[in-house]
């Protein structure tokens, strides 16, 4: 693959990778660094790309792995308690966005941030990025059943909370 093909075929997925990395890291700069590293790896391993069935899923998988590595090294460096990291997750909206977004959007954000890791990843891949179940299996290296069960749980957890919010204003 030459640089033009790389630019035209691979680079356009950057925003999907960025949003996926952001899901894990909740920090735009860190997410940007991860995406940059993913592209360098993809370029270095471009000979393998012909063997990979779905290279976009392959890129997403690298993004996930690098993001998790980064979280691990970050927690090692900072020795933060789990509660602190959860606080960071809830503040994932920038000040500008929080003034713009209305209250219910912030609530949804908190709701989704509070979901278990796997459910959060799956609901993001399906409902934000619009990946098929097969692609999600490929990206997260899970079987179809696990993907569907986790998506069902995630959607229903959100639904229950939404009903509560609307009924009691909680």
């Amino acid at each position, binding site marked *: 693959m030459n*640089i033009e093909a790389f630019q035209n075929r691979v680079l356009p997925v950057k*925003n999907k990778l*960025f949003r996926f990395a952001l899901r894990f890291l909740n920090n735009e700069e860190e997410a940007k660094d991860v995406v940059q590293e993913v592209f*360098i790896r993809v*370029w270095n391993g471009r000979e393998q790309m012909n063997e990979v069935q779905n290279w976009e899923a392959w890129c997403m998988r690298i993004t996930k792995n690098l993001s998790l590595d980064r979280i691990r090294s970050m927690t090692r460096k900072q020795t933060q308690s789990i509660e602190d990291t959860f606080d960071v997750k809830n503040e994932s909206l920038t000040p500008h966005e929080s003034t713009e977004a*209305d209250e219910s959007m912030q609530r949804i*954000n908190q709701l989704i941030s509070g979901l278990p890791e796997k459910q959060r990843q799956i609901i993001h891949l399906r409902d934000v990025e619009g990946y098929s179940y097969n692609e999600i299996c490929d990206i997260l290296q899970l079987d179809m059943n696990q993907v569907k069960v986790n998506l069902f749980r995630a959607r229903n957890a959100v*639904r229950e909370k*939404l009903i509560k919010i609307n009924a009691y204003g909680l």
Partner: protein
Amino acid sequence: MDSERINELLNKYWNCETSLEEEQYLREYFKAGPIADEHKDAAPLFQYFGEHKKKSLPEETFDDRIVNLVSRKKSKVVQWTQSYMRIAAGIAVLLAATWFIQTEMSKTKSAEVQDTYEDPKLAFEETKKALMMISRGFGKAEQEAKKINLFNEAREEIQKPDNDTTNL
């Protein structure tokens, strides 16, 4: 939009039975509005999905940075040509060296050839002179060697009785 259809799709959505197209249809509905009261519960969720999809990296600067980073790392083709160029340069140096040495050697040979005499008589005279010099040298050396021989004979004479006594 048909409210019944949305109800049906939402039910399918919560049960994870919607297709990607149907989910897209729902997102469009909640994005475009107007939203029926009965669907307002779900609205923030779909709006949240839509908002999240808007997050993106700066278009030009990011692409340029990646292309710069990537092209700085040499491609394999460049690496191969570079190593082949190195080998070719090595061979070129070797060839130049052999050519240089050969020409130098042929130069020294031709110098010897130039030194020889053109005239065979003169050459014969010179050779005779040289041989005579060697011959004179040999003659002189022989005379001197004879003196050394005298000493050797004398020493042998002296050593003889010694050998006799040791034999006894």
